């Protein structure tokens, strides 16, 4: 059985570990920050670049590159925005960091701010985490009282304030420019890029870094152990550890932290999570949050992939796929936010998609046409299907609607709502075609609603 490597979740669920400052300091907390402020900011940025850290929010964008893109010559202040709007269905990692180890994140924030000369950081936390917001406020107050946050930290001339801002319950606020709009007090309509890249025109039209909670925690560990040492964890181009949140039809759902790429999907589901429920078989898995394309058990993936500088043949069954950014992208899905949603053979895929479509139709911000109209249309189609009026051609129609959304919207929500439909219909097309007949066969005496 593959061993977990708990870097970020080192203290999560540890008996006796509490989320106050005293406990964090007892465990060696803020030592990294103390060492960091004695170094040159550029060195710290360099460590992060060397580490190869990729963002843990969903897109997997290299963190060091993101920082390099910052417009540092504008003369405007640089902001750090912490994306704690963890809303992707199937994802529940940031909330444990916030609830059980908030100081780890605050230390990561302060190191990041020092490295990038940020004087103000905002933690944008989703509205559904009131307890998390309360814990963060208390932790920041503690850190401030201990001269770890605020003006002139740790006896240096450097100071930085952290503010907590609660969202109002909208998935789109996890999109970085939507989040920035919301933080500015507006409707969270994502901005058009170009020209509004956060690194240049972000919060209040100033250069802004938007990083995920888990990503910032990794920054702390990178600076503690050095970028090169961190880069040795995991696999090339997929460095470090990653928290995988497994939910659905496995014996032991939960969160597990592994070196990226050192565990395969099969190992994760069968060995770590204990396999399917008794008498059931795995049917499908969504590997990176509900917007990732679904994978079907029994599929095989063949082709060439890059390992280091060489091109190597691969021939994988679904269970053989390593859980890293590149491998999941290679087989047509994504690592996304690390939310692994497992479905066994009790699940009807039309009904599962109806659930996902209802979510995305509810969460579309409504700014741009394809997503606004398409997401609701897809919801209406799958809703009609499961309510007894399915047509054999609905699968093809769903796919066509999704095709009209993906790649044509202002933000990535277009893909997020189109990919499930595209992949469900593509991989489980027969279920969509035969849905009406199957339902009728399952309950031949059911009364037909007119």
């Amino acid at each position, binding site marked *: 059985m593959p061993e977990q490597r708990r870097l970020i979740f080192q203290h999560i669920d540890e008996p006796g570990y509490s989320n106050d400052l005293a406990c964090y300091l007892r465990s060696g907390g803020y030592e990294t920050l103390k060492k960091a402020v004695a170094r040159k900011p550029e060195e710290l940025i360099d460590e992060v670049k060397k580490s190869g850290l990729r963002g843990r929010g969903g897109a997997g964008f290299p963190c060091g590159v993101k920082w390099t893109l910052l417009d540092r010559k504008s003369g405007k202040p640089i902001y750090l925005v912490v994306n704690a709007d963890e809303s992707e269905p199937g994802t529940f990692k940031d909330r444990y960091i916030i609830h059980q180890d908030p100081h780890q994140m605050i230390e990561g924030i302060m190191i990041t701010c020092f490295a990038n000369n940020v004087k103000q950081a905002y933690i944008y936390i989703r509205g559904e985490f009131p307890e998390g917001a309360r814990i963060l406020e208390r932790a920041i107050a503690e850190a401030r009282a201990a001269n770890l946050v605020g003006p002139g930290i740790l006896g240096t001339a450097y100071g930085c304030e952290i503010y907590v801002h609660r969202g109002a319950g909208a998935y789109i606020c996890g999109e970085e420019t939507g989040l920035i709009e919301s933080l500015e007090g507006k409707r969270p309509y994502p901005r058009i890029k170009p020209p509004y890249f956060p690194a240049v025109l972000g919060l209040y039209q100033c250069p802004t870094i938007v990083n995920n909670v888990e990503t910032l925690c990794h920054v702390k560990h990178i600076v503690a152990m050095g970028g090169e040492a961190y880069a040795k964890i995991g696999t090339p181009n997929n460095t470090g550890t990653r928290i995988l949140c497994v939910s659905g039809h496995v014996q032991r759902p939960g969160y597990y932290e592994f070196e990226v790429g050192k565990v395969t999907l099969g190992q994760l589901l069968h060995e770590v999570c204990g396999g399917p429920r008794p008498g059931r078989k795995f049917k499908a898995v969504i590997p990176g949050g509900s917007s990732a394309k679904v994978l079907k058990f029994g599929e095989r993936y063949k082709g060439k992939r890059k390992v280091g500088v060489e091109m190597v043949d691969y021939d994988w069954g679904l269970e053989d796929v390593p859980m890293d950014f590149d491998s999941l992208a290679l087989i047509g899905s994504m690592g996304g936010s690390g939310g692994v949603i497992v479905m066994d053979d009790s699940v009807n895929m039309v009904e599962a998609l109806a659930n996902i479509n209802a979510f995305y139709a509810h969460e579309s911000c*409504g700014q741009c*046409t394809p997503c606004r109209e398409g997401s609701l*249309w897809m919801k*209406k189609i799958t809703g009609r299907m499961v309510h007894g009026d399915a047509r054999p051609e609905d699968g093809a*129609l769903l796919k066509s609607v999704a095709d009209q959304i993906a790649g044509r919207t202002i933000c990535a929500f277009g893909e997020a709502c189109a990919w499930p439909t595209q992949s469900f219909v593509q991989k489980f097309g027969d279920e969509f075609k035969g849905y009406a007949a199957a339902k009728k066969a399952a309950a031949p005496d059911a009364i037909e609603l007119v």
Partner: protein
Amino acid sequence: MIAPPQPELITVNIDGRPIAVPKGTNVIEAAKLAGVDVPHYCYHPKLSIVGNCRMCLVEMGMPAVDPATKTPVMDPATGKQKINWMPRPTIGCATNASPGLHIRTTSPMVKECREGVMEFLLINHPLDCPICDQAGECKLQEQATGYGRGYSRFIEDKNVKPKRTQLGSRVTLDDERCILCSRCIRFCKEVAKDDVLGFTDRGSHSTLTCYPGKKLENNYSLNTVDICPVGALTSTDFRFKMRVWFLKQTDSIDAESSVGANTVVWSREGVIYRITPRQNDAVNDTWMADSGRILYQAVRSPERLAEPTVDGVASTPDMAVNAAGKLLVAGATAVVGSGRSSVEEQFLTKRLADAVGASAHLVGRVGEGDRLLISADRNPNVRGALVVGLIKELPPARLDGLAAAIDAGQVKTVVSVGEDLAAAGLTAAQLAKVSVIFLGTHRNATSAAARVVLPGLTVFEKNGSFVNQQFRIQRFAAAVPGPAGATDDFQLLAKLTAAAGGAAPAADLRSLWSLMAAAVPALVTLRHHTIPDTGLLLDGTPWAGLAFAERETLHYQPAK
């Protein structure tokens, strides 16, 4: 005249055709210059860019350059530089032309994108075109015809939204028709500076509304109706009155103030139904004030003067002119011209004054400007009176000089060209001391006191020109005929001059302009029909020393 700075031109390629466009032009405007239509809804040239409708998606490419050698990569098949086409479509509104930019607007991908967006916009649209005011001038109709699939695949229930929300007293919203382009929101925020509109709810259930406790009541609210690409925002006044394709469009000028916003008057069978702005990027962009849109209501007012009278008795135009002529021949006359008259009428007013040796006066109207399209000078054409020499100084608000002359017995006859002398400060006693000849459109204290009343035409019923605050001469044309019994003012003035024994000036616009051009230095090369549709700047330096009342408005800075 100083030549405007020439914009830097760059070459872009649209559908295979190279075209030079000013740097920074976006793809929609660049395509327009190339004669290519890029359909769009949310983009408006005078508003900020939001890129939300996704109708202007095009394919974009850049010439390939070898990153190592920085030399162009050639395509062996064509012998030309290879173009790297982006895999995803991009919006034309937010893409600025850069040197070498290649755009495809007719590729299968673009066609499919447009069909997709059209289908999405229509699935929850009520398609109540037969009762929709926008029908005939609806972007959704036009582009559905031009770029849609022509059939619907939507069999679900459409969204239901409010059908008649009163956003303000003049604007009614049909929310089901709204395509959420946000033009109206941006207009209120950016142009009218009255941030009252926004969306509530989300996704396809998003609803346009006013902020809590606010109303869309600013004097520019009806511009939201003009820029609404669909029939969502409707004019409460025009709603359900007339199909737009029956209406005749006549170019006109807003006579509310010296801004001279360019307008279109929409009429059918002699009746005006609405007034909308006409684009003039040097004057009013694409906007006009709500207050200017209801001016047509004066045309069919019950107070309208419709028959000439002499001493209160109905007469004919010729008899009334003859009666007036007799009064004028007696001498001791004063002429009160108007800053609301056209340049042509002011020229003839001066001719008349000169012919009878009368003093010429003008009534000033100074109010408060709104810094946008209503200036402090509420006369549309004071500068016209300066140009033709009717006055030398800016007019006072009250005719105190004339009052004193009447009291002193120096004036026995007063000709008023449309001005209410009582409102301009003459007392009833003073009016009783003189014989008043009134040329005008509506009944007032002066027409009641006048010995001769000659009904004239409103700005909507005649041809002429105004000189606005920028010294820009702009034409307006007759949209509808005047009431029976009314005569074109410039003909009345010409006839009066003749009746008073002066040389009869020309009685048609063309010969009048020959006469004016000869007499007025500023107009020497000009004719009425050669004034461009967007007007022509005259040289205002001879009057630069005058203390004009106007403060800053759109496209106007007062001289220091």
